């Protein structure tokens, strides 16, 4: 093959495994064709995408298997265990940390055939779906029936429910509806030994530690989520959009803190720094802009918007009306600039971290300053996009045209992670670990935390069959 791989060698599959896998899924769904191997070689890890334009791929799978059911996955996993063939689960391939890259000559287990909308329970406000359903399709199905899951990530159009679960994903409306871990009530998981675990959907339970939390953020390394039951919400009867300009990031963050302390629950809250505000809202220019969307039942929504308005005004916020919210709604899925910049040698990526309110503003200052100090930088900008009563997620975008792309990429990430850890933050809010963030894992979890996670991995998957090289290396 003329494409080059820079992270692992092509795997050689035992003939017995190939024959058995073909029988399990059918010849049509087992592939070693060049086009398939290239298509499943990479997710949306942006450094990998940058290199891919010249035909350099991080790794190639040794085969792509596309099962249609949990039963087929069970058989494949058992077979892979027998032959010690590593398996990389592949959902939408939208992960940005390389979680779905088939390292070590893995076989890709493509989960996208399992994309059915299974059941809607309007009385309990839950829906059951296969994990391979794409976010946008899930929303179209729900919206058609008068509901929404409330999880609208920027990757809505290219990520799957299983991917959301595996990375503890968050959507743009998370301040009201929560992250995916707040939405999942039950799930079905194929374990690394091939057994099927059914976690039935109930609102809460008290039966020991939460097993489902092993797989919320399990990144396909602890099990393969095949279906899930999630909470849903009736489509809002009223939506109120507001925006305010504040004198500084510190002022804006403190206003949102007060709003949430006052029990308001806007669905969307975003604080854009000067640079992002200038890009999004040319009429406002480089001023810290905060947008709010309140939605739901008419009375509550009106009250929610009233509280936001009062607290914002009392704290020096100048109203900019609905227009900035509409602009953001229109542009929020537009990732178009990255692929253009990359063609001109640009390195682009995003980093999302979280911190308590007491640290949130300083974290922004330190992180942006640290990242801007790296040689080759073009721009670093940030926004806060997911809020809790206790703190927020900070989301920073960086771009550079460096002489040495990898050195720049590594140094920028190092600066961001260092600032986060120094400000008591978590190194990831919702993108997960994949393979790229493993290097910072011990600083986040501590040696004891890493040992515990390793123990969990090796207890579930002693041979390291599932998603080897991601999240944690559990091999003894």
């Amino acid at each position, binding site marked *: 093959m003329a494409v080059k791989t820079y992270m692992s060698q092509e795997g050689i599959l035992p003939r017995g495994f190939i024959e058995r896998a073909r029988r399990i899924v059918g010849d049509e769904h087992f592939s070693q064709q060049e086009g398939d191997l290239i298509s*499943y070689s990479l997710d949306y890890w942006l450094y990998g*995408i940058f290199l891919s*334009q*010249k035909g350099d791929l991080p790794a190639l799978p040794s085969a792509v298997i596309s099962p249609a059911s949990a039963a087929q996955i069970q058989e494949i996993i058992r077979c892979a265990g027998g032959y010690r063939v590593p398996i990389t689960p592949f959902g939408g*391939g939208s992960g940005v940390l390389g979680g779905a890259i088939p390292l070590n000559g893995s076989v890709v287990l493509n989960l*996208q*055939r399992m*994309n059915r909308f299974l059941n809607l329970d309007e009385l309990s406000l839950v829906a059951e779906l296969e994990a391979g359903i794409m976010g946008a399709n899930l929303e179209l199905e729900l919206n058609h029936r008068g509901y929404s899951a409330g999880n609208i990530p920027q990757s809505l159009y290219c990520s799957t429910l299983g991917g959301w679960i595996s990375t503890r994903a968050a959507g743009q409306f998370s301040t009201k509806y929560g992250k995916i871990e707040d939405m999942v009530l039950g799930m079905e998981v194929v374990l690394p030994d091939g057994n099927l675990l059914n976690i039935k959907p109930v609102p809460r339970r008290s039966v020991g530690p939460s097993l489902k939390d092993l797989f919320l953020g399990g990144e396909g390394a602890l099990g393969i989520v095949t279906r899930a039951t999630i909470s849903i919400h009736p489509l809002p009867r009223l939506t109120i959009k507001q925006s305010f300009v504040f004198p500084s990031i510190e002022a804006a963050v403190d206003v949102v803190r007060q709003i949430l302390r006052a029990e308001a629950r806007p669905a969307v809250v975003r604080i854009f720094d000067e640079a992002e505000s200038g890009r999004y809202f040319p009429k406002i220019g480089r001023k810290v802009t905060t947008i709010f969307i309140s939605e739901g039942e008419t009375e509550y929504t009106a009250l929610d918007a009233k509280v936001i308005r009062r607290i914002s005004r009392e704290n020096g916020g100048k109203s900019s009306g609905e227009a900035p919210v509409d602009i953001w709604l229109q542009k929020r899925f537009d990732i*178009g600039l990255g*692929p253009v910049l990359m063609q001109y040698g640009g390195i682009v990526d995003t980093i999302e971290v979280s911190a308590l309110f007491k640290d949130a503003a300083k974290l922004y200052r330190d992180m942006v300053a640290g990242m801007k100090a790296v040689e080759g930088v073009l721009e670093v900008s940030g926004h806060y996009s997911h809020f809790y009563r206790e703190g927020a997620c900070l989301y920073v975008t960086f771009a550079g045209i460096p002489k040495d792309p990898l050195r720049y990429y590594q140094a920028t990430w190092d600066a961001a992670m260092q600032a986060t850890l120094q400000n008591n933050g978590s190194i990831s809010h919702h993108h997960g670990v994949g393979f790229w963030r493993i290097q910072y894992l011990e600083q986040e979890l501590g040696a004891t935390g890493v040992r515990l996670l390793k123990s969990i991995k090796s207890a579930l998957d002693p041979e390291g069959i599932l998603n080897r090289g991601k999240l944690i290396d559990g091999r003894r």
Partner: protein
Amino acid sequence: MAEDKKETEKIARCAMCADMCKYSCPTYLATGRETVSPQKMARLIVYNEKSLLEDEKDFLDLMFQSAMCGACSRHCIYDDYDLRKFIHKARVKAFDSGFIPEDVKKRVETFRKFGNPDCERELIDNGAGDTGYFISCSSYKDADLLKATEKMLSKSGLAVRRFGGGDICCGAPLYYAGDVEGFRQVSLKMKAEIESRQVRRIVVDCPTCIKMMTQIYREIGVELGVEIMHTAQFMQALLKQGRLDFRKKHASVTLHDPCILSYDLAMSSIPREIITALGFSLKEPVYSAEHTHCCGATYGAKIGDHRLKDAVTSMRLNELRDTAADIYVTACPTCKSVLSEVNMKYITELVAERIIAKR
């Protein structure tokens, strides 16, 4: 040269996008296969251009697995881009190098023999007037549709010249096969056929014919010089002008939006207006209008991967059946034929059934 660079940048951009349109791609959804998603197709096209692929036959074969329906371009984050142009370019390369799938090869051979994608046919040419009704290849095979059209045209009181059959075809099968020269010849023949009939406007049932006769002919420098309108547009005008009297009926109707009508011709509201004007209650599948899914015909009728066609058709049938409507209607004769399991009607049939004699 600058234009080439611009085009190269466009597809390179697509190849590095996050596949933000793949949720809309019927081929991807029906198969769950990443490789046929728009961004991955773009990556492979870029790699092929850079000679990074070893298995060119596999690549060219993949290029024939696109429905060419336009869902991806409709939902693209870039306004100035249509992946289908690049896929078509790859098909042209495949055609020129002889690497086209067997089904496609057979279809081209049939076309060359009969001047149409089906068989030897009788030429239809009757009536007179400055409005022409061009009988598309799919309409030609559909006796119910032709009968309904005849009723509708006769009740309209307009003078209409009907023509089609024989070796008159828009050339879509050749275009989709990548036969550039064959398609150009057909477009010139079509121009001559129209000029010889001296019509001012032409009414056509098939959205693909309309796309070919307008957008694609224009791309190769052929202007027909007449107004081309879809039958639904024509009937909508007749209804508005009061030229058709009809009896309303209370029943539920689900419209299957033909992909080309929605994505290329942007006419999804017109059939809906006709259906509701006739008194029917409209039911919408989850995927309709700007989210419609191809019926699968582009594989079966125009291209020819029957396994893919079956997967896409079966997905679309299930989506339509979920609406549990009394009647299923579409505005493309090929969609009607492919989705026959739900007793699909062409919209003219729905109209003709409700027409009554002028008071």
